[in-house]
């Protein structure tokens, strides 16, 4: 694991100064972006970015803070999406947000079950055992068509995004809806990491024997980490399904997606909330920029297959370069750059 611990307040600066960039960012995201962005920016870039960032935040609680490696994130996303869908479908008049929350709770419950092996297994062995969640959930969702309301193809159509009679079914609406959900849950996750529970996560990660001798119940902390993380990942899955794709099939939550989220966390920076957003930016947005650049500059010369493979090489090379420059991830890289600039 990394040697990151709780962040130190910067010397010579008042405490609020550290939070200024976040406040500025939120102000821009809420106050400026909705007025200047176009549909492409919202529907193809920002909404998937927000959903996967949230999944990254969720996994980071588990993997970065509590030290439990999971390869089942996509499964918990799928549980969140399908559970929300079914609650909204089957309970007449259930508000959308309640459906999302119930989807998250269901994901948390499933996360608890698949977190049980963590009491005995560690590291790679735990990662492999979380694969069981990945395969089981996908299998169950495909096998029993009750989950997709008997649809022949097993594809669900998203319910309309309406909260308290206000419709969010426009591109700006979907963006704002995702932004509000992501901001609130991220805030909660951030508070959690600075609470006693968050500290116990880190204690268990760094040395569980020492943690238990301090009176921390390792069992409780590990399961709590799985539950909280799965809740957030589940809500992210529902956002991905309802706000971004607007239809969802189990195959969309395959092992590739789990790896994608794990890479978001690793590249962004373990045990860093900011890292999840930076990582998602790199994994989601950067390839799109590259793909559009490639198409605009070389689209007439090469076919899309050649460009696509070239992009994969570029992204792969950059990942290696970034991790050599800063093994602790983009978050640490940004921290180093801003520190240097401030001095």
């Amino acid at each position, binding site marked *: 694991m990394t040697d990151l611990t709780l962040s130190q307040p910067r010397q010579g600066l008042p405490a609020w100064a550290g939070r200024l960039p976040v406040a500025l960012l939120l102000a821009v995201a809420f106050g400026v972006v909705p007025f200047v962005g176009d549909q492409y920016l919202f529907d193809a870039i920002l909404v998937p970015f927000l959903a996967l960032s949230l999944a990254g935040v969720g996994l980071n609680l588990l993997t970065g803070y509590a030290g439990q490696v999971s390869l089942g994130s996509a499964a918990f996303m799928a549980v969140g999406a399908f559970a929300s869908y079914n609650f909204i479908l089957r309970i007449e008049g259930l508000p959308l947000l309640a459906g999302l929350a119930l989807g998250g709770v269901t994901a948390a419950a499933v996360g608890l079950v698949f977190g049980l092996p963590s009491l005995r297994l560690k590291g790679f062995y735990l990662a492999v055992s979380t694969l069981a969640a990945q395969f089981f959930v996908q299998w169950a969702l*495909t096998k029993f068509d009750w989950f997709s309301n008997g649809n*022949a193809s097993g594809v669900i159509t998203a319910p309309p995004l309406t909260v308290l009679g206000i419709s969010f079914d426009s591109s700006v609406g979907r963006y704002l809806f995702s932004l509000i959900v992501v901001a609130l849950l991220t805030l909660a996750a951030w508070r959690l990491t600075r609470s006693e529970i968050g500290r116990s996560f880190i204690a268990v990660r760094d040395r569980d024997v020492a943690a238990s001798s301090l009176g921390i119940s390792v069992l409780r902390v590990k399961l709590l980490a799985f539950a909280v993380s799965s809740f957030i990942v589940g809500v992210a899955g529902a956002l991905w399904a309802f706000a971004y794709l*607007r239809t969802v099939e189990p*195959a969309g939550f395959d092992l590739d997606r789990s790896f994608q989220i794990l890479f978001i966390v690793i590249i962004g920076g373990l045990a860093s909330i900011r890292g999840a957003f930076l990582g998602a930016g790199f994994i989601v947005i950067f390839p799109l*920029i590259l*793909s559009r650049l490639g198409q605009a500059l070389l689209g007439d010369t090469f076919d899309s297959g050649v460009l696509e493979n070239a992009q994969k090489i570029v992204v792969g090379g950059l990942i290696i370069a970034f991790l050599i420059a800063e093994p602790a991830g983009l978050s640490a890289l940004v921290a180093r750059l801003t520190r240097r600039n401030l001095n």
Partner: protein
Amino acid sequence: MSFRKTISRLALAAALLGGLGSVAAKADGEIYFPLQSYRVGPYAAGGTGFFGGFIDYLNLINERDGGVNGVKFVWDECETEYKVERGVECYERTRSTHQPAGPAAYNPLSVGIAYALIDRATSDKIPLITINHGRTDSTDGRVFPYVFPLQLNPWSEASATVNYIGQQLGGLDKLAGKKIAVLYHGSPYGKETIPIFDLLAKKYGFEVTQIEVPHPGNEQQAQWLTIRRLKPEYVVLRGWGVMNPVALKTAVKTGFPVDHIIGNVWSNSEEDVIPAGDAAKGYVSVTTHPSGTEFPVVKEIVEKVYGKGVGNLEDKGRIGSVYHNLGIVNGILNVEAVRIAQAHFGNRALTGEEVQWGFDHLVLDDKRIAELGATGLVQPLQVTCADHEGGGAVKFQQWDGKTWNVVSDWVASDRALLRPLIEQSAEAYAKEKGIQLRDCSAANPS
């Protein structure tokens, strides 16, 4: 001051992104097809062949006729890797370009992507073409005005396959008591026909076992051992990409006779059988169009498109292959829809809404097909406001180790059986989404 530097970098990035949007916009007065192609990944063989054929046909019209009624075609490709979220991004990227007319139609060749685009394309009023595949109940044009599963929807394919097996056994009544196994790809595409096979089994009294092969399908030992235990008379293979040659090889390994495997319309290409080598000899599959280069339209493509060095396929040996010819057929249907719409709206670039009218009134009779040089390649088609499939018949072909030979006449599906189910499913969808049914009655001829 580094903060300013950061800001200026951000501004530069934003300008770059914005600039890319305007680069993509080209002159109007052209008919634009955004292509959500896939040349990378496990399904690249289908993607390169199909989109290659589509592009070759559009090129032929541009090179030979100077476009359709003087309006040229333009297109660009956006790689999806057959992944839904990539397909959605490609759609969002292209949907508002090439104004004022905008995109003429989307042809994603992926059921997953098509599903995600149904709402979007309908509200943007751009036709969504899913030739030989797609969401079956989108055949009901009253509920899905903008979605067209042209030629053959999945349920028709299943029904025609069962009819063919009946023929082979000596009559549909001989199906009673027989066993059929369906091996399907673990995707929305593969699962689409599960209820229909169940229904047909009940109707004709055969026993059906449906077995899923998880995507991408490069390991099927367990599935074929199940089949061996089951000893079915026929296996219906609803595969896609790498799953198909693996199925044939595993079948031979487990001792199942290959000539009793019936491949569906996405398991019927040269790319599916050649990798299986000798194991594929005798394998039968559904097709809506034969392979081969003897059709005048394919000859013209070889002469006028590849002759000028603008052909899309890198490997010229694939010209006239099943996927390539399907791309050409798809090109013919799209171009004819544009032509029909132009006859109604005028010879100019058309909006998606106007092209939709063309698809809604798409009629291809034998005379027109002969004029297009596609006799035997395209089946006669009549799309109407209510019926967005238009055809529904298939032929069967057998692989002899070198080429596909057509071994049956047109085998029709039981459309009278399927239509009420399609309407029922579509109406349930309309109710769930609060869609007002389009009036397709005689008072509103279309």
